[in-house]
């Protein structure tokens, strides 16, 4: 994986060439990845990929215009050609009236770093992943199940530098396991499935046997799922379900969504919109988070309280939206120019004290959702989203799981949902399939709206 010195060298070639060609400002971003992914299905390996890629992207500013060009030709000649083409491209563009000069480096005392690199994870081999997958397949075969999933390990690098002297480098390792187990009932031929996923910078955090057991238990417990009528139910959302719903609000907390008059919280900042038990922040420094501590322009990320006890508190800003809204940038900018502007990549939802088991015990009649699937926004103003339940949906009655049920479609306002949360578990690092991994709790929610069912 590319070292700090090697990344600095590539950036230096770009910056020096831009200065020589009389650009008013030049910025270079180096990204690299060598994450390998072993895939399995039907209790055997189906794909095994070991890709590698290093790219450089340069932004030049000249005469009030800017252009971004990218390549993975990282030879000195390739980088110089890229810079020359960027300067030529900028000359064809209109002036960007809102363009800001490149940022200067922040004081060293303001530059916090995070250590998310683990040598064992970086060096994890295909054989080690295969061994872990054998463990998963053995669990499946012993219990008469069919397993599918992935095991991925590797490293990633982000580095940024500019002609104002700014330079930041971050390397991080990545480990992820995700498992689905399927049971086919021998009498009815009906399928039931269970799923579990974990993601961390450290492979030692992945508890493969526990994840295999959890997905197997869910597949077995949801055997022969029963019919259920759609309607409003009390639901217990496991953390993955919470993550894959709440990520559809990420954009609404950006300064650019206010500039563009698209946020569901437009004109609502400072007002209580959600339940008092809802507090959400963006915090890259949280010990369960991952990611670089600087943004797409190299600014230090700040911890931002987005929602405090139900009140819409702060937004995240890049430099451009901050200037438009007379706010201070928070270090969440995406690489300029950008349509989205900025993004809260490190969401932390404050948790409570109830476990999922306690939530089940306190429920007279409700539904336990292991995960949600294919969630999409239906209404940007009321924040209605639709989606399906998947891989372990259960009817809860009189404080216990009664049976697996067929999957349901929901149409639910997230704003209403976050006003009907009656219990929260402690927050944990969670991976889903819709949003970036985040630190979120399980939630018990009343009046959750299911509008139809499906056939399985």
């Amino acid at each position: 994986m590319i070292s700090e010195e090697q990344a600095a060298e590539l950036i230096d070639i770009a910056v020096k060439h831009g200065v020589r060609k009389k650009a008013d400002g030049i910025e270079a971003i180096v990204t690299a990845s060598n994450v390998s992914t072993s895939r399995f299905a039907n209790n055997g390996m189906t794909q095994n990929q070991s890709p590698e890629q290093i790219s450089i992207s340069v932004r030049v500013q000249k005469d009030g215009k800017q252009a971004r060009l990218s390549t993975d030709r990282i030879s000195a000649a390739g980088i110089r050609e890229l810079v020359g083409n960027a300067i030529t491209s900028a000359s064809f563009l209109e002036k960007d009236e809102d363009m800001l000069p490149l940022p200067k480096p922040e004081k060293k005392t303001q530059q916090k770093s995070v250590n998310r690199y683990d040598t064992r994870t970086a060096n994890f081999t295909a054989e080690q992943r295969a061994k872990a997958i054998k463990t998963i397949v053995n669990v499946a075969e012993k219990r008469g199940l069919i397993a599918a999933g992935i095991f991925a390990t590797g490293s990633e690098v982000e580095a940024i530098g500019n002609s104002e002297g700014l330079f930041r480098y971050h390397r991080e390792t990545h480990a992820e396991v995700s498992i689905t187990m399927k049971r086919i009932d021998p009498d009815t031929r009906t399928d039931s499935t269970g799923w579990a996923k974990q993601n961390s910078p450290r492979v030692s955090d992945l508890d493969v046997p526990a994840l295999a057991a959890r997905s197997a238990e869910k597949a077995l417990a949801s055997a022969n799922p029963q019919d259920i009528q759609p309607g409003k139910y009390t639901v217990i959302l496991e953390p993955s379900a919470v993550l894959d719903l709440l990520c559809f609000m990420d954009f609404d907390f950006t300064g650019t969504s206010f500039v563009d008059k698209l946020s569901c919280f437009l004109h609502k900042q400072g007002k209580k919109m959600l339940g008092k038990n809802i507090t959400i922040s963006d915090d890259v420094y949280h010990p369960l988070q991952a990611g670089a501590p600087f943004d797409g322009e190299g600014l230090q990320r700040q911890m931002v309280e987005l929602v405090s006890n139900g009140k819409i508190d702060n937004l995240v800003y890049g430099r451009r939206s901050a200037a438009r809204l007379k706010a201070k940038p928070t270090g969440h900018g995406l690489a300029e120019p950008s349509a989205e502007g900025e993004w809260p990549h490190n969401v932390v939802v404050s948790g409570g004290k109830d476990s999922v088991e306690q939530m089940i015990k306190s429920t007279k009649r409700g539904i336990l959702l292991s995960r949600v699937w294919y969630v999409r926004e239906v209404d940007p103003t009321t924040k209605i989203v639709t989606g399906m339940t998947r891989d372990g949906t259960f009817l809860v009655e009189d404080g216990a799981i009664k049976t697996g049920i067929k999957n349901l479609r929901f149409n639910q306002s997230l704003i209403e949902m976050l006003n009907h949360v009656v219990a929260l578990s402690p927050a944990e690092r969670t991976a889903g399939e819709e949003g970036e991994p985040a630190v979120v709790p399980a939630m018990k929610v009343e009046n959750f709206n299911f509008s139809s069912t499906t056939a399985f």
Partner: protein
Amino acid sequence: MEDLALYAIDVATSAGATYADARAIEQQYQDLGTKDQTVSTLDLGSTEGIGIRVLVDGGWGFASTQTLTKKAIAAAARRAVEVGRASASVLSHPIQLAPEPAFNAVWMSPHTMDPFAVSLETKISLLLRVNEIIRSVKGTTLAQSHMTFIKEKKHFVSSEGTRIVQTFIRSSCGMEAFATNENDRQKRSYPNSFGGQNELAGWEMVLKWNLPAHAQRIGEEAVALLTAPACPVDITNVILGGSQLGLQIHESMGHPSELDRALGEELNFAGASFLTPDKLNRLWYGSSIVNLVADATAPGALGSFGFDDEGVQAQRVYLVKNGLFTGYLSSRETAPLIGLPRSGGMMRAESWNCQPIIRMTNISLQPGNAGSLEDLIADTDYGILMDTNKSWSIDQLRFNFQFSTEAGWEIKNGKLGRLLKNCSYGGITPFFWNSCDAICGPEDYVEWGVPNCGKGQPCQMMWTGHGASPARFCNVQTGIAHAV
């Protein structure tokens, strides 16, 4: 590049691969976007590299490199073999490939104007002009417009003797008008939502879709939607416009027909399929007028090519014939598993650094005999015309779906009536397609392009095509998405 790809094959087979192929790709792209009078996206780039896929002891291995030296390529080829050997240690069955002739061919996608020969100045000023027209409509609050151009040269070689060079030019253009007030956010797009229309074509497609001629209309419609009545909760006739029908085909016919899904290989993420092999040639997927083809040979359609990423020649095959489910999207690995003699040629990878998987080509509903859209509306006593996708969702076996569209119009006594906002409809796939009672003719047939079909782990994006004329469906549930 071809010499380097051949060298990769030699190293891989010497290291123990029983089969090897290599794709060497050079790609150039332009991604342009504007918001009002500002350039909001401008990414011009290039990427190149080699991906090497091997079979070792019946297991797949894949590795890639962007360093185009013999030393780096040899290292990547050996890494692919090493990874393949690890796969072989956890196999449910050794992989066998369906036979395929060795080809020696050159193919280029059709285009008349190279989009990379058109200046950035021309492109950006066209986008800014349409934004200006949209924002001249009182009540609009934001205008956005986009263009994307990709030129890709791909060499494919295999240890079976195939040598193919293909050149692709893909183009897209689109725009959106937004209108916001205290209680509502509405949007209209043209020619399609989520980036616009995408074709395997050059700059001529941008001229053909003529964004400036439609900018004012979409601005006016976005503003009108703010005060329009809402789509009723009802069970009624629904006519789907072509672009919405294209996505309906993609989600509820294309994905379930993928044989890797049907065999459980995508169970963990994208999902499986209700179209299990026991349903082949038995399930009545749609009404007797429903005919669906997977056609990788359609000129200008986004999912066309000369050869797929296993070197299998492009084909046109029926998936549904006169309503009966008759075929799958398959690969050299999956075809033999259900007794097919040959792959359907549907394997593609997003980039040189991804392993190919089964992807839709152009999954297209054949035109019917209902005439033009105007003819079909005139033939409809009551119902709703819905057009331009706003949101889409479907379960992992592809049964229960729900779509929302940007706009709808009441139909009463054969005439279009009021504009409706917040339109949505939903259903269960085979019931829905069996309720199709009219399909417009070739005069309204368009090859719609979907540039961002996500599948695989890690998730790969793919460009797929969906030819469709507007069609009518009976007894459809509408309006339920907002009935919360």
